[in-house]
C-alpha cells in the first residue's frame, strides 16, 4: 500500500492542513518512506492476537458524582482570539 498525490491531498483536507504544490512531492516521498517501515509489520501473523487498547490493566477510574464550581466563563474565554458577550466568535457559518 502506498500513498499517491491524490491520497495525500485527501488526507490534508481531512486534517485541515494545506499542502502547496511545491511541497507535495517531498511530503508524499517522506510519507511513503515511513509507510514502508509500517509494512514491515506484515511479516507478523496477528490473526489470533487481541488488539491492546489499554496498557494499565485496570478499569478507568471515575470521579465522584459531586457538584463542583464550573462558573469560570471569563477564564475559559480569556485566551480566545475573538470574543463577544462572553462567547467565542467565529466567521459566519451559514450564508
Amino acid at each position, binding site marked *: 500500500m502506498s500513498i499517491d498525490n491524490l491520497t495525500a491531498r485527501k488526507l490534508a483536507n481531512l486534517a485541515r*492542513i494545506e499542502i502547496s504544490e511545491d511541497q507535495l512531492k517531498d511530503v508524499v516521498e517522506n510519507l511513503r518512506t515511513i*509507510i514502508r517501515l*509500517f509494512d514491515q509489520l506484515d511479516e507478523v501473523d496477528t490473526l489470533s492476537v487481541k488488539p491492546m*487498547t489499554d496498557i494499565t490493566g485496570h478499569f478507568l477510574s471515575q470521579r*465522584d458524582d459531586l457538584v463542583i464550581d464550573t462558573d469560570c466563563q471569563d477564564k*475559559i*474565554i480569556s485566551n480566545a482570539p475573538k470574543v463577544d458577550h462572553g462567547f467565542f466568535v*467565529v466567521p459566519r457559518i451559514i450564508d
Partner: protein
Amino acid sequence: MNDFLNLSLAEARTRLAARDISSTELTKAYLDRIEATASLNAYITITHEQAMLGAAQSDARLAKGEGGILEGIGIAVKDLFCTNGVQTTAASRILDGFIPMYESTVTTNLWNAGAILLGKTNLDEFAMGSSNTTSYYGAVESPWRSTDAPDKKLVPGGSSGGSAAAVAARSAIAAIGTDTGGSIRQPASFSGIVGMKPTYGRCSRWGIIAFASSLDQAGPMTRTVEDASILLQVMASYDPKDSTSAQAAMPNLLSDLNKSIKGMIIGVPIEYQIDSLPEETSKIWKQGVNWLKSEGADIVYISMPHTKYALATYYIIAPAEASSNLARYDGVRYGLRINEKNITDMYTHTRTEGFGEEVKRRILLGTYVLSSGYYDAYYLKAQKMRNLLYQDFNQAFEKVDTILTPTTPSDAFEIGDNKDDPLKMYLQDVFTVPASLVGLPSISVPVGLSKRGLPIGLQVIGRMFDENSVVRIGRTLERAAQFKAMTAMVEDTTKDE
C-alpha cells in the same frame, strides 16, 4: 557562586535545611547561569521575578524550620506543562500567546513541595522529535562539543532537549520533562544526565499538553539517580482528573536506592544488538553488564522476538493519537487564528501556518492510519503488535528483575543532521519505544564517553510499578561508572573566579 551550580538537588536540600545557604542565593545563581548560557536556547520563558519572590517566601519558611521536600529549589519545567499565568507554548506557533488559567497536576505537586519555577524549557514542537530542532522558538544547542569537530553545534536530543541542556549546562539543578517514545531518556543520554520515565499512570497527565495520550508520561531529568528519585517521588500522585492515573501509591524510592543488587537478575535482550549498533555503544553496554555482574547480579540473556517491530508500531500509534489530540487546534478558543473569511479557511490556514513541518507530517500519518480502508492494516495491526510486545516483556519479567539496554544507538549528532530524513530521525527511538508502548518504568544513566568525547547512557527497564528496582540498578551503574565528565562550558564554572 560556582559552588551553587555544582550542588546536587539532594545536597542543596540539606544545605538549605541547615540554613547554610539561602534559596535567594541559590535561585539567583541559577538565574544568572541561565543568562550566561542563553546562547543554548534551552529556555523559552524565564520566570525571573516569580522565582525570586518564591525564593524569598521559601527562605521565610526555612527560617521557621518549615518547608516541603523541595523547599526553595528552582526547577526548570518543559514548556509542555500548563503553568497558571505563565505562557505555555509547546514550542508551537499555534499556541501563540496562550496563557493557561490552570496549573498541571505534576507542577502543582512540585510547588506544593516548596519548589520554585525557574522557567519553561524549549522542546521539539508538541514534543515530536529527537533533536529539539523542530521548535518554533529555534533549536536548542547542547552544551557538549565533540573532540573531533569542536566547532560544530550538537543537538541535546529531544523532545525534552531544553530540560536536558539546562541540567547539563548547570542552568537548572533539576528539570522535568515528558516522555512519549524516549523524549526524556534519549536527551538525557545525549546530554550526560539522568532521565527517568516512570510507569504509565504514575504521573498525572492533567495539564500536560497531549501528544499521544496512551504513551505520554512525565518524569525527572537530573544529574544523579538520587535526585531523580527525590523529584519523581514528588511528581507522582494519584489524580482523579486523569482517568488513567494509577491508584497504587509510589513506594519510597530512596529506601532501597543504595542497597546491594546481589542476587537480582538482569536481562540482556539479544534483539537490541542490532546490526547498525556502533561498536563503542556495544562495548559500553557490555561494560554495564560486567559492572552489574561484579556487584553480584545474575545476568541472563533473553530473547524478545518482537523488538524489531516496536518502532513501526510506535510510529503508527503515536501519530494516530496525535492526529486526534491535535484536532483541537482550530483557532477558535485559544492561540493563533489566521484568515477569518470563512470557517473552513480559518481552520485550514490557522493549522497550516501554526504547525511546523514535523507536526504536520505526523498529523497526516495519523490521519492515514486511522482512515477508512487503512485502519485495519495499520492502526489495528499496531494495537495487536503492542500486545505481542507486552507479551515479550511479560515473558522476560518471569525470568528477570530488570532489563539492561543502550538508551540510544549512538552519541549526539550535529544540529541539522537527519533533518531531511524523518525515518533516520525516528531510528533514534529504537531502544526507547518498546518500554513506552508497554508503559514500563525506565531510566537512562550516563556511563561513559564515546570516542568523540560525547556522553553515552545505558537504559534500565523494570516491571510495571517497580520503579524501586529501576533506580537501584541505575544507582549501581552510576556508582560503578563514576561518570564525572563535564562539558567545557561547565568546567569553567568549577574554576575560581
